[in-house]
C-alpha cells in the first residue's frame, strides 16, 4: 500500500541513513580537537533532546526535570564502575534501566496532574533530586566523583586523548534515540501517545489508556536520558550534582527539541545542531570579556526562532509541509 504515510516513512529512513553516514564521516575532514569536541557534545545533546521529545513532543507531557534522569544515569554507571568494577558499556544499560524506573516512580504521582501543573511538578521533583545527591555522602555529596583513568579501553569507554572513539559512541546513542522515535511514529504506542497529546478525552473514548501511555512514554524517555547521562559522565570523567543534576540541565535537554520542533523526528537534531554550537561558540568568543554577551546572543536566537518559526526550525524544511502544522 503506497499511501502517503508509508512513502514518507520510507523517505525519512533514507534521509536518516544519509545523515548518519554524513555524521560518521565528519572526523575525516575535521581534525581539530576543539571542533571534534563540539561535535560530540552536539550529537550527545541531539540524542538527549530526542529522548526528551519522546515524552514532551510525542506524548505532550512537558517535563522540566529531565536533569534528574540524566544525573541518575551518570551516577549509576559511574558508581557501578568505581565501586563494583562493572564496565561502563554494561553500566550504560543499568543507567538506562534505573533512570527509566525512576521516571515511572515519579510519573506515578505526577501524571495525576496535567498540563502546566505536571510541568511544575517535574521542576520541583528535579530540584529535590539535586538536593538529595548534594547531601548524600555515599555518592560523593557536593564534592562529586572522579573517574580515574585506567588505560585505553572500549569496554570501559576510556580513551587517553583521542576524541574519535567517543564520536562514534555518542553517534550510536543519538541514532538509537532517533530509531526509537521513528519506530514510535509507526507503532500503536506512538499513535496512542500522539492522541493523548492532542485530546485526552477523545483518546480515552477510543480505548486509549491515558495513564499507561504517559507512564510508558516517561519510562522510555527517562531511560534514554539516563543512558545519555552515563555517556556524558564517562566522557568528561568527573561528575557532581552541579554538573549533571542542576535545574538548567533540564532546560538544556528540552530546548533543542522545542526550538527544532516538538513531536517531530528531525526537530531535536536540527535544534541541537543550531543551539549547542551557538552557545559554545558565543561562550568561547564572547564569554570571557563582556560577561553575559554570549547569553544575550543565545537568548536572542531563541526569541528570534520563537517569533519567526513557532513550530520550530524543522518547519523550514518540507518533510512535513507547512500546511501540515496547525497554526498554534
Amino acid at each position: 500500500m503506497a499511501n502517503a504515510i508509508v512513502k514518507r516513512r520510507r523517505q525519512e529512513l533514507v534521509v536518516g541513513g544519509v545523515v548518519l553516514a554524513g555524521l560518521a564521516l565528519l572526523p575525516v575532514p575535521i581534525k581539530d580537537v576543539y571542533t571534534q569536541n563540539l561535535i560530540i557534545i552536539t550529537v550527545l545533546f541531539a540524542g538527549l533532546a530526542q529522548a526528551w521529545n519522546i515524552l514532551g513532543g510525542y506524548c505532550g507531557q512537558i517535563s522540566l526535570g529531565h536533569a534528574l534522569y540524566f544525573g541518575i544515569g551518570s551516577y549509576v554507571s559511574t558508581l557501578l564502575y568505581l565501586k563494583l568494577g562493572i564496565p561502563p558499556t554494561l553500566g550504560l544499560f543499568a543507567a538506562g534501566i534505573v533512570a527509566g524506573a525512576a521516571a515511572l516512580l515519579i510519573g506515578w504521582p505526577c501524571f495525576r496532574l496535567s498540563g502546566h501543573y505536571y510541568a511544575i511538578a517535574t521542576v520541583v521533583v528535579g530540584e529535590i533530586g539535586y538536593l538529595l545527591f548534594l547531601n548524600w555522602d555515599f555518592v560523593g555529596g557536593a564534592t562529586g566523583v572522579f573517574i580515574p583513568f585506567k588505560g585505553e579501553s572500549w569496554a570501559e569507554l576510556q580513551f587517553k586523548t583521542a576524541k574519535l572513539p567517543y564520536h562514534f559512541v555518542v553517534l550510536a546513542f543519538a541514532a538509537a534515540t532517533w530509531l526509537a522515535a521513528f519506530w514510535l511514529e509507526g507503532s500503536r504506542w506512538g499513535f496512542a501517545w500522539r492522541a493523548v497529546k492532542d485530546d485526552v478525552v477523545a483518546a480515552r473514548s477510543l480505548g486509549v489508556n491515558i495513564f499507561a501511555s504517559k507512564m510508558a512514554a516517561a519510562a522510555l524517555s527517562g531511560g534514554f536520558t539516563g543512558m545519555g547521562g552515563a555517556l556524558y559522565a564517562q566522557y568528561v570523567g568527573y561528575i557532581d550534582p552541579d554538573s549533571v543534576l542542576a535545574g538548567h540541565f533540564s532546560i538544556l535537554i528540552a530546548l533543542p527539541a522545542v526550538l527544532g520542533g516538538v513531536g517531530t523526528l528531525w526537530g531535536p537534531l536540527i535544534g541541537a545542531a543550531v543551539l549547542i554550537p551557538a552557545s559554545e561558540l558565543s561562550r568561547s568568543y564572547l564569554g570571557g570579556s563582556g560577561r553575559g554577551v554570549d547569553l544575550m546572543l543565545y537568548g536572542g536566537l531563541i526569541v528570534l526562532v520563537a517569533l519567526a518559526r513557532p513550530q520550530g526550525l524543522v518547519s523550514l524544511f518540507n518533510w512535513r509541509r507547512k500546511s501540515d502544522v496547525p497554526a498554534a
Partner: protein
Amino acid sequence: MSPLLEIRSVSKRFGGVAANIDISFDVRRGEILGLIGPNGAGKTSLFNAIAGEVTPDSGEIMLNGQRLSGLGPVACAALGVARTFQVVRSFDTMTVLENVMVGAFLRHRAPAAAMRAATDIIGFCGLNGRIDRPAWGLSPPEKRRLEVARALATEPQLLLLDEMLTGLTPTEAQSGVQLIRDVAARGVTIIMVEHVMEIVLPLVERAVVLNLGQILTIGTSAEIVRNPAVIRAYLGDRYAA
C-alpha cells in the same frame, strides 16, 4: 431478542443539580434511537454515563447483560461503545488517516492491519479525498465525519452521536443523515442526541424525550410530535392544545 443496552434507574447529580433522575429504558439491537429534549434536559449527561465518562450515583447500565456503569471510558470502548462529541474533538496534529488509525488500533495491533481497516472506514464515511490531510484543516462537516469514522474504527456495537447534525446547513445535514443510515445498515445500533426535533424524528424509529432530568415519554416519532407534554416542554403551555 434481548436488548443491546439496558438503562436501569440511572440517577446523577452534579452538586445541587439533578441531571438525571431515575432514568430507565432499553435500546434494541440495530435500532436508531433518538434522545431528545430541550437544553438542560440531561441528554449529554446520560450520554456520558453510557460512554463511561460519568459514573451514575445510582442505577446501572448494561451492555449485552454486562454492567458498563463505573468501568470508565477505556473499558466501555473495548466492550463496544463508541461516541462522537458535541464540540468536535479531532487530533489536530495528525492526518485524517492517523486519526482513524488511533481508533482502529483498538482491534488491530499490527500497524498495517490498522491502516487497512482505517482506510476502508474513511472510504465508507466519504473522506477518501481528505485521507492524508491534517485534521485541523477540515471543514466542520468533514470533522463530524472524521469523528464518526474514528468511532466506527473501534468496531462498536453501539454508537453514540452527540448533536452530530446540529449547526450544519440543510444540505450538509442531509448528507449527514445519509451517513447515519449507512452506519445503521452495517448493523451498528445508534443513539443520537439532538435538540432539534425535525432533524431526528424522520431518522429514528423511537425516541426518548427527556425534560428536567426525567423521562417525559418514549415512543415512535409520530407519537412524540402529538404528545401534549412534549409540546409543552418545547414550546410552553400556550401551544399545548
